[in-house]
C-alpha cells in the first residue's frame, strides 16, 4: 500500500504546489459565471418557484467546477508526465495498474472537492444555500469527481500531445458539462434537447447534486445515483482494462 499512498501523495502535492493556478483560478472563473449570469438572468429566469436564480445556479456551478477540475487534474498530470518523460519513474516501480488508477482518481476527486468547496465558500456572500440532504451532496460530488477523474486518465493516457488533450476537453468534456443543466432546468428546453439531455450522464450528476441542496430536482435522485453509479462502473472497468493492457504506457 505504501506505493499507492506515495503516488496519491505525489499527485495531491503536485496540484497543491501550484494551487493558485489549480484552485484559485477555477474558483474565480465560477465566481465570474455567477456574477454575470445571475445579474443578467435574475429577472428573466425562474426555475423553481421557491428559489432565486442565483441560488439555483450555485449548486450547478459548484458541481461543474468539481467535474472540470477533476478531469483537469488527472489528464494534465498524465500528459505532463508523458511529455516530459517522468512517467517512467512510476512505470518502473512495482505499483500495480489498479493502484495507479485509484491514486490518480482520488487525487482528481480531492482537487475537485477543494475547488467545489472554494466556489461554495465564495458564493456564501450571495446566498446561504439550503442543505436539505447533505448525504446526496457528498455522494454526487464524489461520484462525479471520480467519473471525470477517470475520464481524465483515459484522455491523458490516450493523448500524445497537448492539443489532442485540448480537443478531448473542448469537444467532449465542456459540451457534456455545459449541456447538463448547470445554468437552467432541462424542463425549459425544447423537447428534442430535453430528451437529448437525458442521454448525458452529467445531467444526472448535477440534478442529483442539486437535489441535495433544495430537495427538488428534474428527476428522482435515485435514478440519478443509478445512472451516475453505472457510468462510473463502466468507465472504471474500461480504464482498468486499458491500463492493464499497457495501452500507450507500456507499448
Amino acid at each position, binding site marked *: 500500500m505504501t506505493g499507492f499512498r506515495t503516488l496519491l*501523495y505525489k499527485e495531491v502535492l503536485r496540484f497543491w504546489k*501550484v494551487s493558485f493556478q489549480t484552485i484559485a483560478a477555477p474558483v474565480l472563473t465560477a465566481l465570474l459565471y455567477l456574477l454575470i449570469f445571475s445579474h443578467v438572468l435574475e429577472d428573466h429566469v425562474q426555475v423553481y418557484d421557491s428559489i432565486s436564480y442565483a441560488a439555483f445556479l450555485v449548486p450547478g456551478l459548484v458541481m461543474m467546477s468539481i467535474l472540470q477540475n477533476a478531469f483537469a487534474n488527472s489528464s494534465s498530470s498524465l500528459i505532463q508526465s508523458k511529455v516530459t518523460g*517522468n512517467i517512467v519513474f512510476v512505470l518502473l516501480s512495482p505499483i500495480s495498474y489498479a493502484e495507479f488508477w485509484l491514486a490518480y482518481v482520488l487525487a482528481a476527486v480531492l482537487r475537485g472537492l477543494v475547488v467545489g468547496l472554494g466556489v461554495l465558500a465564495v458564493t456564501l456572500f450571495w446566498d446561504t444555500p439550503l442543505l436539505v440532504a447533505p448525504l446526496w451532496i457528498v455522494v454526487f460530488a464524489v461520484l462525479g469527481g471520480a467519473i471525470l477523474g477517470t475520464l481524465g486518465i483515459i484522455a491523458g493516457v490516450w493523448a500524445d500531445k497537448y492539443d489532442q488533450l485540448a480537443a478531448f476537453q473542448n469537444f467532449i468534456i465542456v459540451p457534456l458539462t455545459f449541456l447538463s443543466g448547470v445554468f437552467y432546468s432541462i424542463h425549459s428546453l425544447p423537447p428534442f434537447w430535453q430528451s437529448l439531455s437525458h442521454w448525458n450522464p452529467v445531467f444526472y450528476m448535477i440534478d442529483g447534486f442539486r437535489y441535495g441542496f433544495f430537495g427538488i430536482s428534474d428527476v428522482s435522485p435515485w435514478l440519478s445515483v443509478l445512472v451516475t453509479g453505472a457510468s462510473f462502473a463502466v468507465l472504471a472497468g474500461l480504464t482498468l482494462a486499458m491500463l492493464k493492457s499497457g495501452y500507450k504506457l507500456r507499448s
Partner: protein
Amino acid sequence: MHPAIRINSVTKHFGATLALAGIDLEIAQGEFFGLLGPNGAGKTTLISALAGLIRVDSGSLAVMGHDVQSAYRSARRQLGVVPQELVFDPFFTVRETLRMQSGYYGIRNNAAWIDEVIESLDLGDKAAASMRTLSGGMKRRVLVAQALVHRPPVIVLDEPTAGVDVELRQTLWRFIRRLNGEGHTIVLTTHYLEEAESYCGRIAMLKQGRIVALDTTANLLRQFAVHRLRLRLAVGGELPPALRARAVEDAGCWVLSFADFAEVEVMLAQLREARCPISEINIGQPELEEAFLAVMQRDAE
C-alpha cells in the same frame, strides 16, 4: 543461485521494424556487464523490456529469478534503471524526488540510505533545490540516485555518461564500482568504449536486434583486436622490404600490426639486419573500439 538476469528468446517488433530478433542472454549475479552496439541496435529496447516498460512479442525475461510479467512486482523491486533520457519532475526538490521514488517501491523511513546516496553522488548541496533549477549533470546524478533508492541488487545504466563532464564521470564510476564490489550486478550500455573496456568483465555486442558477440572483455580483445608496433625512423632511414609490405603509414610513423608478442622479436631482428635507424618506438595496447568495429563489420559481410 538465480542469474541476475535471464533473457530467453525475446523478440519485439515496433510496427514493421524488428527491434529484438531473438535475444538469449544470461548475466550472473555480481557481474559488471556491458551491452554495446550502434544506435538502433536494440540496447534500450532490451532494457525497457527488462524493466517492464514495453511488452515483448515472445520469449521471457527474469530478474533474480522473477519473471518481469507474471511476477512484475518482485522483478521490479530487484531492478534499478537509470534511463538514458534526462527526465525529471519539475514540481519537486531533489530530496522529495528521492523520498517519493522510495515510496513507490514501498519503502518508508529510508532517510539514512537516501542521505548516503545523496552524499556518495555529491548531491548534498542540492538536496533542497528544485529539480528544475539543476544543471544537466546534477539531473543525471539524481537519475542515478533514483535508481538506487530501493537498493536493487541489479542496476542497469543506459548511457549514464552521455554528455557528462569528467568530474561527474569519476564520481559516478567510483560509486558504481563500489556498488559492484558490494555485490550489486551492473549492466551498462555506453558509446564510450574505453569505459566499457575498463569496467566491464563481460560484454555483449548487439546489432539489429541480435547478439553478434558475447564474451569476456579480455577474450574479445584477444580475438578481434591487434597490438601495434609503432616506429618513427630517423632521417634517411628506410624500412626493409619485408616489413614495408605489411606496414601502414600514419602521421609520419610506420604502424605494424601483430597478434602475438613473439612477432615483435622477428620484426626487430629484421630492422637490425637492415641497419634501419629508429628514432622512436612504442607498442600500443589493443582497444575495444577495434574489436567492436571488427565484430560489426564481420557481421555485415
